[in-house]
C-alpha cells in the first residue's frame, strides 16, 4: 500500500529525515517510536503534505501513485489521513459544517454521490458512537475551547467520517488520560480492517497496549535504526532509548 524509499526531507535547509525506508501493507499496524527530535512528526507531516518541509531525495508511492506529487487535499481524497498532534482551533467554523464539505469533496473525487443533509447526519450519528463524542461539541467552533481529550476524539471522529485507507496518528496519545486513551484507541481499532493500514507515531509504549502493532520501528536522527515486533516497544519502555543511541553511535564510529 505504502512504500517509502530513501526519503530525505529538510526544513529551512536543516535536514530532518535522512533516508527513511518503510513498507506498509494493507491490514498492518506500524508503530514509529523514538526520542524527541528524532523526526517522527516530520515523517507524518511529509506524508500528509505539509508545505514547510522540502523533500530533497527519495520517493513515496501510495497505492501505485507518487504521493509527493499530490497536493494535501488530493492525498486526503486518495485516502491518506493524518490525525494531528496539535489539532488546530478554528473559530467560526463548526465541525459539522466543515466535515460535510470535506466528506462531499472526498466523495466527489472518488466518484461517489454527495451525501444530503439527512444521510450525512445519520452517518455522523453512527460514527459519533465510535469515539463517544457529543453532538453538541460538533456544532461548536472546530476545536475551539475543546479539552485535549476532546480534540483527539474529534480527530478520530473525522477519521471515521472520511474512511481513509492509510491513517497516520501523530502522537494521538500525548496528553490523554487513561479513559480518553481507551476511547480513542477503541475508535481506531474498530476502524481497522484488512483493507486499511495504520501508522502510529508515539513517544510512549502505553498506547501500544491498546492499539497492538504488527511492527515497531525506532527512528533516530532521521533514520529507522531498529525494527521489530511489539516486544521491541516493551524493551524500549523498560530500558529507554539510550541503548539504541549508543548502538547507533558505536556503529557509526
Amino acid at each position, binding site marked *: 500500500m505504502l512504500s517509502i524509499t530513501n526519503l530525505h526531507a529538510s526544513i529551512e535547509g536543516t535536514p530532518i529525515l535522512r533516508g527513511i525506508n518503510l513498507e506498509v501493507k494493507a491490514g498492518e499496524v506500524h508503530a514509529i517510536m523514538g526520542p524527541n527530535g528524532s523526526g517522527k512528526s516530520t515523517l507524518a507531516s511529509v506524508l*500528509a*503534505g*505539509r*508545505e514547510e518541509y522540502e523533500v530533497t531525495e527519495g520517493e513515496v508511492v501510495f497505492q501505485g501513485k507518487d504521493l509527493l506529487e499530490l*497536493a*494535501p*487535499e488530493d*492525498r*486526503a*481524497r486518495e485516502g491518506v*489521513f*493524518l490525525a*494531528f498532534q496539535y*489539532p*488546530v482551533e*478554528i*473559530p*467560526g*467554523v463548526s465541525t459539522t459544517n*466543515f*466535515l460535510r*464539505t*470535506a*466528506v462531499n*469533496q*472526498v466523495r466527489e*473525487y472518488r466518484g461517489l454521490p454527495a451525501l444530503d443533509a439527512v444521510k450525512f447526519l445519520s452517518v455522523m450519528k453512527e460514527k459519533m458512537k465510535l469515539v463517544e463524542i457529543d453532538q453538541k461539541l460538533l456544532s461548536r*467552533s472546530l476545536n475551539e475551547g475543546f479539552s485535549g481529550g476532546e480534540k483527539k476524539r474529534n480527530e478520530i471522529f*473525522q477519521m471515521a467520517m*472520511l474512511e481513509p485507507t492509510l491513517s497516520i496518528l501523530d502522537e494521538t496519545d500525548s496528553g490523554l488520560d487513561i479513559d480518553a486513551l481507551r476511547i480513542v484507541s477503541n475508535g481506531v481499532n474498530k476502524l481497522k480492517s484488512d483493507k486499511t493500514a495504520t501508522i502510529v507515531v508515539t513517544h510512549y509504549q502505553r498506547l501500544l497496549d491498546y492499539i497492538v502493532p504488527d511492527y515497531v520501528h525506532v527512528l533516530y536522527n532521521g533514520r529507522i535504526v531498529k525494527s521489530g515486533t511489539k516486544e521491541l516497544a516493551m524493551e524500549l519502555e523498560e530500558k529507554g532509548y539510550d541503548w539504541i543511541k549508543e548502538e547507533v553511535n558505536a556503529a557509526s564510529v
Partner: protein
Amino acid sequence: MTTTTNNNILDSILSQVPSGSSFSDLRESSSNFLEKKGLPAIKEEEYKFTSITKKLENSISDFSFAKKSDLNSETVESHVFDAFEGDLLVFNNGSFEKDLSKISNHGYTLSLISDAKPELLGKIAKTEKDPFVALNNIAFEDGVYLKVPKNQKVEKPILLLFLNQSNEGQVIHSRILIEVEDNAAVTFLEDSVSLDDKTYFSNMVTEIKVGQNSQVHYNRLQNESKNTITVNNTETDIHRDAVFTSVLVSLSGDMVRNNLSLNLLDSGCEGNMYGLYLLNGKTHVDNHTNVDHTKPHAQSNELYKGVLADSSRGVFNGKIFVRQDAQKTNAFQQNNNILLSEDAIVNTKPQLEIWADDVKCSHGCTTGQLDEEALFYLRARGLGKEQARGMLLYAFTGEVMDHISDEAFQNHIVNIVQNRLGSNF
C-alpha cells in the same frame, strides 16, 4: 488654512446653492465655518491616511449637483434585495422619490426636511465636527425627516435605498434626520447602489436621535461602483437606557470615508458598532468611529474586521472618550485585519481618552495573514485550497454579519460576501 484647489471645489459647490432657501442660520454658519476651515488639507490629522480633497480634485471634473435620474418602478424593484419585507424609501441622487417608495406609515411619520423644518436638524451632527457635515448643511435639498413617536414599535424594517448616478453633475448630497422618541423601537436597512460606473461624489449626513429606553438598529451596506467617492457622516444622540446598534458592511468603492459617532448622553445606555470591510483592487475604506461616554453606567461595544486583497487600503480609527462623570463605564473595542496580499495596507489606531477612574475599557487590534496552519488542517481533510481559504475567511467575517438584525438583509449580504470569498479574492 485652505488651498487654492480647495477653494475652487468649495466655490463651485457653494455657487449652486439656491438663494433664499430655508435653514438660513445653519447654512450661513456652515458657510462661515467652511470659509475658515476649508476641506481637509493633505496630512490633516483627521484625514491623515485619506487624502479625500486630493481625490475629489483628481477624480471629479464637474462639481455640479447631479440631477435626478430617470427612474421607474422596475428599475427600483431590480435594486431591492430578495425577500425584503417592509417599507421602502427611495432616493434618487439624494432626492426623496415619494411615488417610487412604498410607505405604510405604520408606526412612524415621514416628511421632507424642507417642509417640516425640524428643530433638531443640525443639532446632532454639529457643523464644526467635520467639513463635510458643513458642506452637506449648505448643499442638501430634498432630505427626509422620519419620526417614530413615543411607545411605538415599528414592526417591519424600513429600507432606505439610495440610487446614485452621475447625471449632468457629479455631486450628490443626501440628508436624513431620524427622531425616535421614548420607548420606541425601529430597524433601518440602508443600501446604496450605483446605477452605472460613472464617477460621482456622494456626501451623506445621517442624524439619529434615540430617545429614552428606545432601541434602534441601523444596518448599512456600501457596495457602490469602483469609481465612487463617498463621505458618510452618521451622528447619533443616545439617551437614557436606550440601545443603538450600527452594522456597516463596506464592499466596494474608490474611496470611502465613514465618520460614525455615538454620543452616549445618559446612564444605562448602550452603543454597539460592528463593521466589516472586504476590499480588493484599489478600494480605500476609512472608518473613523467615535464613542463619547458622558454619564455613569453606560456601555459600548465595537468590533470592526477587515479582509484586504490586491492593493486595497483600510483605515480604522476608534476614539473612545470616557468623561470624568462616566464612572462604571464598560467600553470595548476590537479591530482585526487579514491581509491577503503584500500590497494591501491597513492603518489602525485605537484612541482612548479616559478621565474617570472606575471603568472597564479594553481595546485591541491585530493585522496578519491567513492562518497557514488552519489552512493546512482543512486541506489535509480533503478541502480544496480555495474552498479552505473561503471557509476560513467566511468564519472570520461571520462574527460581524451575525449582528445584522434583519434576516433577509443578512442573507443578501452573506451571499455577496460568500461569492466574493469563493473566487474574487
